[in-house]
C-alpha cells in the first residue's frame, strides 16, 4: 500500500475540507434574514392589510409544524388540523367558559394540550404506515370535530364561539382596528417558534428524522429507536400546530368547528408542498404564495381558484416535486452553470 502513503497530504486536505463543511453548514446565512425583512416591511407598506397578513403568519406557523412531520420525518398525515383545532379551542373555550383571557399563558396552554394529544395519538398511530395511517389520522381529526358537535352547547358547534375577548398583551398592547398589534404579536411568536424549529431540524435528532425519511430499514439496522423518534417529533409538531390554532382564535376573536375540517388539513399540506417540504423556508413561501393567490383569485371566481389549485398540485407532482424552493434552487444551479460555461 505504498500508493496510499504518497497521497496522504491530499487525503488530509480532503478530510479537512469535509470537516470544515460539516462544521459551518448550519451557520446563519444572510438570505435567511429575507423573509423577516419582508414581513417587517409589509407592516409599513400595507398598514391596512394587517388582518390578512396576520392570517398568513398563522398559516406559515401551521405549515412549519407540518414540515417537521411530513418534510423531515416523511410521515404523511391527513389530520394535522386536529392539533390546530385543539389549540384554537383551548384558548376559545378558556376565554368563553373559564374567563381565561390572558393571551400568552393561553398560547402555552394550547401548546401543552395539543402536544399531549399528539403524544397519545402518535404513540398509537405511528406504528402504522400507508393507507392505515392516513385513515387513522383523518379519523382522529373528524372524531374531534364530531365530539365538538355532540356537545355543541359547550363548544358552540358550527355556529362557533363568537365575540371572544382577550386581555391586552402584557396588559398594555390592546386590540386595534387595523390588527397591527395582532400582526406584530403573530410575527414575534412565529420568530420564537421558528428559532426552536431551526435548532431541532439541524440537531442530531433532526438528522435522525431525515434518516427515517430516507431509509427506515437502515435506521432500524443502525439501532435507532424509530418509534420513539417519530412520537417525539409528532408531539412537538402537534404543540406548534396548537400554538398556530391558538393564535388563530386570539387574533380572529372567533372560532368554529370548521377548523377541524379535512379541507384545513389538506390546505396546509398543499401550502407546504407548494413551497417545498423539508427545507424550513418552504412553509413561508408556500403559505404566502397560496394565501395571496387565494385572496386575489377567489374573489374573482372561487371555482377557477379551486380548479387552479388542483391543477397546480397535479403539475407540482409531475414536474416540480421539490416545490417552489426546489425550482428556485434548480434555476440558481442552472444560472451558475451557464456562468461557468461562458
Amino acid at each position, binding site marked *: 500500500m505504498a500508493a*496510499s502513503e504518497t497521497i496522504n497530504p491530499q*487525503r488530509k486536505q*480532503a*478530510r479537512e*475540507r*469535509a*470537516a470544515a*463543511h*460539516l*462544521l459551518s*453548514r*448550519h451557520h446563519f446565512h444572510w438570505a435567511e434574514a429575507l423573509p423577516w425583512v419582508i414581513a417587517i416591511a409589509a407592516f409599513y407598506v400595507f398598514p391596512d392589510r394587517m388582518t390578512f397578513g396576520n392570517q398568513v403568519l398563522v398559516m406559515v406557523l401551521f405549515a412549519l409544524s407540518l414540515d417537521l412531520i411530513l418534510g423531515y420525518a416523511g410521515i404523511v398525515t391527513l389530520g394535522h388540523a386536529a392539533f390546530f383545532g385543539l389549540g384554537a379551542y383551548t384558548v376559545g373555550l378558556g376565554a368563553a367558559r373559564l374567563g381565561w383571557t390572558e393571551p400568552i399563558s393561553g398560547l402555552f396552554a394550547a401548546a401543552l394540550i395539543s402536544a399531549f394529544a399528539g403524544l397519545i395519538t402518535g404513540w398509537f398511530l405511528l406504528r402504522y404506515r400507508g393507507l392505515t395511517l392516513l385513515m387513522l389520522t383523518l379519523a382522529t381529526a373528524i372524531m374531534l370535530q364530531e365530539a365538538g358537535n355532540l356537545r355543541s352547547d359547550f363548544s358552540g358547534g358550527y355556529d362557533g364561539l363568537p365575540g371572544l375577548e382577550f386581555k391586552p398583551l402584557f396588559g398594555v398592547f390592546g386590540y386595534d382596528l387595523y390588527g397591527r398589534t395582532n400582526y406584530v404579536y403573530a410575527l414575534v411568536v412565529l420568530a420564537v417558534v421558528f428559532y426552536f424549529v431551526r*435548532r*431541532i431540524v*439541524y*440537531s*442530531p*435528532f*433532526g*438528522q*435522525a428524522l*431525515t*434518516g427515517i425519511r*430516507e*431509509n427506515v*430499514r*437502515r*435506521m*432500524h*439496522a*443502525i*439501532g*435507532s*429507536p*424509530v418509534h420513539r*423518534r417519530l412520537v*417525539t417529533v409528532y408531539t412537538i409538531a402537534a404543540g406548534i400546530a396548537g400554538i398556530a390554532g391558538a393564535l388563530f382564535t386570539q387574533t380572529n376573536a372567533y372560532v368554529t368547528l370548521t377548523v377541524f375540517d379535512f379541507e384545513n388539513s389538506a390546505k396546509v399540506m398543499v401550502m407546504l408542498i407548494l413551497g417545498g417540504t423539508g427545507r424550513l423556508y418552504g412553509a413561508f413561501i408556500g403559505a404566502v404564495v397560496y394565501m395571496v393567490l387565494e385572496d386575489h383569485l377567489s374573489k374573482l371566481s372561487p371555482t377557477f381558484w379551486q380548479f387552479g389549485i388542483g391543477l397546480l398540485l397535479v403539475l407540482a407532482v409531475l414536474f416540480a416535486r421539490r416545490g417552489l424552493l426546489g425550482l428556485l434552487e434548480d434555476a440558481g444551479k442552472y444560472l451558475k452553470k451557464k456562468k461557468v460555461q461562458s
Partner: protein
Amino acid sequence: MTAALEVQSFNRSFGALQVTCDVSLTLERGARRALIGPNGAGKTTLVNLITGALKPSSGRVLLNGEDITTTSQADRARRGLARTFQINQLFRGLSVLDNLCLTIGERDGNCNNLWRTAGSNPAVIDEALDHLDSLRLVDDALKLVRELPYGRQRLVEIAIALAQKPRVLLLDEPAAGVPSSESHLILDVVASLDPGIAILIIEHDMDVVFRFAKQITVMVQGSVLVEGTPGEIMNNEQVRAVYLGQESQRHA
C-alpha cells in the same frame, strides 16, 4: 467462553412455506464463517431472523450469552449486532459523511439531542472520516450517496456497519452487483477487518469463500446441510452433489 452469537433451532414459515427449518448456528468470538447455499436456501431470511427484522416462529438467539430473541431490531444493533444488506439500504439523499455521522450519532445516543447542532462535534466527524479513510471514500465524503456509482455505494454500506462498532457482523453478499474489477477492493476490506469481530458472510464466489472463511455452513432448502472447515466442505460428497455441482454448471 460464551459464543459471540448463538442461534438455537430457528424455525420460520410464510403461510404454508417453511423457509427456515430447525437452523442452529454458532459464531465464536472472532469467527470467520461463510454461509453458502443455492438461491432460495433461506440465507437472507436467516440474517433477517438473527437481526430481528423477522420474528422466528420458534427458536432462540443469544448475543454474547444474552437471550435477545424478544428484543427489537434496534436494540440488537445497539448491543453490537450489525449487518449489511444484499441490496443497498442507504440514506441516498444524504452525503456519505452524513450517513456515517448519523450512524455514529445513533450509536452513541447523540440523536436524543434536539438542541445541539449536528456535525458540531469534531470527534464524531473525525471518527466518521477514519471509517471512510479505511475504505478510501474520503474523496467522496461530501457527495450524496445517490450520486455515487453502485460499487462505491457498496463500500458505504460496509462503512456504516463498521461505524456501529459491532461485535458481530453479518455481511449479506457484500460484493453483489459490483463489477469484478471493483469487487476485489470490497473483499480486501472484508479480509482486513478487526480480528475481534465475529463475521458471518453470505457469498456466492467460492474463491472468496475458501480464501476468507475458517468455517463454512451450507444451507439447502431452509435447513443446514452440513458444517465444517473449507477442506471438509470441499470434499463433502453431499455438498458437491447439491451445491458445488450446480455452481460449476452455472460457471460452465
